[in-house]
């Protein structure tokens, strides 16, 4: 699928010499950087405005089978935390030096622990929360254990052990701290609100238990975290609606939670069904939500209007947005990030970021 090998090579070459360049840039006004991962073991940093890969780092000591799953970056843009090594290890990669500055093994003798996409770093960068599904490996059989949220001190370095383990619901696909560190959100059957210190449930935003007349149960697969720009968690969903005449239709919509205000909003799109995979909210025009999959769509969540949709060149799993709200970056799946204009949804560029594919690795945005 690398139909643009030339661009790719240029991009990688630029990445190799850019170490110093990036630190210089850091002194100037803050810029947007996309941070994502690519098969088999790469963490990739992209200067969004320059359309350039500025760094490609190799994750050390990893099994090359699975692609990276969850990825989160400290708010200062210094360290990216990635779930890798058959999803049994979380490593912190320093985005200036490429050094592994943090490493926690989720498995231990007799226990296999796996994380997926639910991982977040606290606003001050001091704590890392990871949702772990453990399995006891017994002689000739396995025994599934209750999942938990492992909270680490990010300064614990290599061989980090959890500071504490919080009880957590099964099938948690996203973890997100509120900007004031008062709440840790765990997105599962419902959006559960936890005390980040004790793990005590301090609130809930109904999702599966969300009841509206005529509507069935909503369905989503929320595995593309991209709430950092608007501080708003957003996920597309499908829901069946039966009208007064008994006619059933499936609708797609966007459900979102303002992480600062702890407030939910949602709306279903009108017209022909779209098939979104992930969603991002515009940090400037906050009524605008964009979804990506085989199409890119722009929606007004205040009115439920689908403003525009365009076909993408192929399937993209994830979408993120620039700090000024002007550009969209569509990534995931293969080895490219496509750039679109948020006003017109016109395609502006393609950035080839690696040899390997991103698959479902998260694609996050930081300023530095």
């Amino acid at each position: 699928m690398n139909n643009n090998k030339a661009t790719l090579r240029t991009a990688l070459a630029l990445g190799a010499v850019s170490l110093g360049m990036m630190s210089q840039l850091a002194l100037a006004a803050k810029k947007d950087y996309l941070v994502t991962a690519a098969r088999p073991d790469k963490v990739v940093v992209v200067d969004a405005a320059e359309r350039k890969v500025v760094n490609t780092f190799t994750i050390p000591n990893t099994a090359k089978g699975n692609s990276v799953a969850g990825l989160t970056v400290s708010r200062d843009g210094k360290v990216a935390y990635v779930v890798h090594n058959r999803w049994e290890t979380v490593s912190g990669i320093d985005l200036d030096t490429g050094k592994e500055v943090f490493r926690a093994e989720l498995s231990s003798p007799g226990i296999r622990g796996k994380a997926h996409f639910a991982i977040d770093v606290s606003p001050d960068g001091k704590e890392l929360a990871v949702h772990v599904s453990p399995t006891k490996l017994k002689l000739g059989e396995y025994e599934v254990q209750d999942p938990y949220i492992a909270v680490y001190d990010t300064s614990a370095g290599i061989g980090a052990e959890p500071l504490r383990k919080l009880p957590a619901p099964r099938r948690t696909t996203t973890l997100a701290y509120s900007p004031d560190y008062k709440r840790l959100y765990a997105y599962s059957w419902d959006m559960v609100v936890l005390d980040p210190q004790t793990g005590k449930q301090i609130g809930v935003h109904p999702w599966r238990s969300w009841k509206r007349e005529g509507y069935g149960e909503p369905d989503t697969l929320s595995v593309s975290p991209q709430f950092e720009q608007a501080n708003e968690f957003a996920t597309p969903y499908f829901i069946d609606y039966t009208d007064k005449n008994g006619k059933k239709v499936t609708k797609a919509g966007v459900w979102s939670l303002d992480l600062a205000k702890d407030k939910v909003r949602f709306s279903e799109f009108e017209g022909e069904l779209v098939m979104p995979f992930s969603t991002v909210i515009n940090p400037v025009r906050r009524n605008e939500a964009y979804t990506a999959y085989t199409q890119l769509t722009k929606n007004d969540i205040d009115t439920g209007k689908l403003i525009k949709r365009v076909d993408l060149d192929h399937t993209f799993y994830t979408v993120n947005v620039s700090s000024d709200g002007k550009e969209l970056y569509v990534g995931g799946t293969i080895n490219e990030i496509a750039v679109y204009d948020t006003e017109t949804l016109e395609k502006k560029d393609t950035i080839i970021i690696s040899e390997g594919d991103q698959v479902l690795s998260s694609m996050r945005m930081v300023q530095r």
Partner: protein
Amino acid sequence: MRAHSASVIPLRPLLLSMAISAVPFLAQADTKGAAEALLNSKCQTCHLPTDKGLNRIDESRRTPEGWDMTIVRMMVSHGVELTPEERQTLVKYLADTRGLAPEESAAHRYLLERDFTLIEQPKDQLVADTCARCHSYGRTGLQRRTEEDWRKLVHYHVGQYPVIEIQQGGRDRDWWEIASGEVPKRLDKLYGLDSEAWRKWLQHESVSAAGQWRVVGHRPGWGAYEGQATISSNGDDHYSIKLTLNYANGKQETAEGKAVLYTGYEWRATVKQGDMNVRQVFTLSPDGQTLSGRWYQAGIDAIGGRFEAVRDGKEAPARLLAVEPSYIKAGTTQQVTLYGSNLSGDVSLGEGVEVLKVVERGTGKLVVEARAAAGAKDGVRAVKVGDSQLDKGLALYQKLDYISIEPDQAMARIGGNGGAMPKIPVQFESVGYANGPDGKPGTADDIRLGYFPAKWTLDNLNAYAAQLKDAEYSGRLQEDGLFIPGDAGPNPKRKFGTNNAGELKVTAVVDDAGHKVEASKPLVVTVQRWNDPSIR
């Protein structure tokens, strides 16, 4: 498959079929002693003896393919080292001692026979909803376990594939709670370890497959065939087989190969048939009198045929096996051929069908000229030669009311083009029906007449397919109803540079002496299947 749903999340099952490709079923198996020594040396370290035998191993029963899949999993996931011969020895021994009785494997033989054109009929809806989303329902239905061992299987699933709970079909329910709670209880009731059938089967006196056999069958696309087989024993349930097959369309094939009989009835052979490598998946009946099942081309399981054989030779009982063609139209005269073994005596084609003359008479084959009376009633006649009778012998009809296209479920896979996977074609056939006494199509009393030659055409299934020009790119349909899918890989000529997958519509038109009947059916052309375990 075009990705239409936003709910896919890749799940990577073990690449079993890649790691160790063809099952070495044909290596000469060793005796019981060698197998028990292997269980002790290779398995017991992790499967300790309990009061019920070896942990896990003695709490379940499987088909030969089922045991092979588990053993390969032990090799890939748990580092067990076995030579191909040792693997074969274990599969044979475990299938013999911890297998399924014939009636226990009967419901899901299509999986063993690799006939994927049927739509499964699950025995339990909860089990189907919980378990049959990544693999067939039958994979479960072809095992027997204790309740506890069924539960351990669920622990394995979640431990190995934690995403099972967040995939579609997992996240919309309390999957873990259901799968580890109610499902093992149901499975214990439906497919428990202990069964009357298996206890009886263990007592059953084993029969040999060796001898002369009279063969009939049907190969989609080529039609009916008949022939002979000679099976000789090489000892220890190992056999050699030689076949000659004569097709009604004039083609001839010979085949030769080796076989193993597992569990006293599970016949698995690899033969060279014409220029194809063919796998036979047959069952030997408990009385040893029939050998029947399906054969298919190794690696391209869509190409194959049904097979039925009975004992041949002077001592064998007289048996009438097949009538070709299987239908006759009222008011017409035609030749009818009867196939069987040791046939002698008068030929009767049933009420309303007169035998005008015997054109050819042999003990294995009879050709007669038959006339169906103009006013005779629609229905399937029993056909008799002397004392041997075939109940579903000859169907008499006034009018061809409708046709139906087989297979039930048509799915082709793109392939070739220098890639590792061959193209998986679909062989279509048109089957004629009469409405039966109630005069309505699609009801239980409809009369299946048999295969009718048809004129075949291909079209796009829907507007989206038309827009993407699927009919142009996804493959071509031959005159004989064989659909050959397009090349694998991205196609730069297509929108989005997409591959040649597509959604098509196949149409058959049968002309029955001027009366034209038409039918259509969707055909999905999808991508290669990279992981193809021996039980899907």
